[in-house]
């Protein structure tokens, strides 16, 4: 369970850590969007360098990021192979009926691979450098225009907050239940797949029951402390926009402009 990097927070004091979650989210989303502007190797090189720069800025070792990609590697390879096998154009290297490996297919495959890895790296940068609660606040702020069309934005972010609060408890609890089962002679990670699945049942059931109980208790606490979803609430956590946040956004604008330029310059000499 400790192997999962994606979605984890890594405490630190780096420049990136101190950026407002709203700025970080906007920057990350726009980065993912402008990935699709790049159509030539110059564009990809620029984005790649930028990604490496941002990863350096976070002050977290590259090993961490690689570990973040690892669980997704099969998904990436699968998508890349589809891309390679079903794109036609340019010199054809191999041809088996509908399946061809062509020059364009290969190049496309490489680009898709890079795109995937960069998306994962950048999202990992965001989650590693932002406290979950700040992320929730950021999402809340960015979604707030949806209030106008009656989307319950505050409820959604409170739900996220509580879900985030539950995760460490849930992990602790799983550990506790597994220990309890171990004390009764169960060994985990041995035997056939079916056997291992069978051993999970006595963990999942108590976990389920205790989560329900916890949710019930929590609902009681919220009620007694006056939480009503229909009522306006004030907020104790405040986000403050600082100069470095503007710097981050301006950087993204400049990056986009350069990419567009590269695209225009080399548009017809693709590949």
């Amino acid at each position, binding site marked *: 369970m400790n192997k999962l990097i994606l979605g984890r927070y890594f405490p630190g004091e780096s420049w990136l850590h101190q950026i407002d979650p709203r700025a970080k989210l906007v920057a990350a989303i726009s980065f993912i969007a402008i990935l699709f502007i790049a159509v030539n190797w110059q564009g990809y090189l620029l984005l790649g360098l930028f990604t490496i720069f941002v990863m350096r800025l976070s002050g977290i070792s590259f090993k961490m990021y690689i570990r973040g990609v690892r669980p997704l590697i099969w998904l990436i390879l699968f998508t890349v192979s589809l891309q390679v096998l079903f794109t036609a154009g340019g010199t054809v290297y191999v041809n088996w009926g509908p399946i061809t490996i062509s020059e364009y297919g290969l190049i496309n495959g490489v680009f898709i691979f890079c795109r995937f890895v960069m998306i994962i790296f950048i999202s990992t940068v965001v989650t590693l450098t932002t406290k979950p609660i700040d992320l929730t606040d950021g999402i809340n702020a960015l979604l707030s225009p949806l209030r106008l069309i009656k989307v319950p934005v505050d409820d959604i972010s409170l739900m996220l907050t509580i879900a985030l609060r539950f995760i460490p408890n849930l992990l602790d609890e799983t550990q506790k239940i597994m220990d309890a089962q171990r004390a009764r002679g169960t060994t985990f990670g041995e035997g056939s797949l079916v056997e291992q699945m069978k051993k999970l049942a006595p963990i999942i059931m108590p976990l389920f029951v205790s989560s329900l109980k916890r949710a019930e208790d929590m609902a009681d*606490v919220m009620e007694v*402390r*006056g939480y009503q979803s229909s009522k306006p*609430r004030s907020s104790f956590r405040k986000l403050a926009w600082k100069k470095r946040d503007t710097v981050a956004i301006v950087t993204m604008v400049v990056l986009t402009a350069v990419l567009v330029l590269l695209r225009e310059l080399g548009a017809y000499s693709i590949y």
Partner: protein
Amino acid sequence: MLVAEKTIVEVDNLTFRYDLRKDDHTLSAISISIKQGEWVAIVGGNGSGKSTLVRLLAGLLKAERGTITIDGVRLNDETKWDIRKKIGLVFQNPENQFIGTTVQDDIAFGLENNNISYDEMKQTVDEALKLVGMDSYRNQDPSRLSGGQKQRVAIAGILAFKPNVIMLDEALVMLDPRSRIQLLSTLKKLREQNDITIISVTHDMNEAALADRIIVMDNGTIIQDGIPEQIFINNDQLSPPFAEQLRRKLAEKGSAVPQSYMTEDEMVDWLCR
């Protein structure tokens, strides 16, 4: 202790059961009347219905029969939100009491729900943190605190809210003796300053002895209701507070101690006379 004459909590003929298919009631025909500013301790064995009573008072459970009136307002589905602005409840189990991801966020939760402005919240949260001595833990994750620290944060959350009635369901059990004494005297001071009513469920007879009044529950009914000295003289099942135990031992040994219940201070005065 001088107690104002206004009744703040009025429970009349309250009857409740969790399982409607069964005949035995968790609470049967409970009637209590509590004055504003009073400190009431509720004691009784495990499963006697203390937590259930407190939950009913907070509007978390619905009575089968009988009524609850708080500050002149009858508790029902329409009024429960207004009534909850006047009451604070600290639950028995400190584990699942936290909504916020940090101690200070959690303390602010009740204030946020009432749409209190940021500046006011900030001040109130600071005060509450200081009152329970958790000032230096404000940015910690509450689920990673020790049991006693959790209880202190839960209490701070209620204090910040400034309710008229504070209900504590064994909310001090995990505190070390010094913190407990400190917190009890804080509560006492607050009560004197703001005329707060305190209803405290406890198994600690020394704590109960500090109350103005003790209610003894057994099997869903009130079997005794009176000032500490009456309760401890007339009840063999409760183990009395230390001073009273000492008095009885002294009496057994033939010492000329007074025949009636004595508080700790009275005992000290008598011993040093």
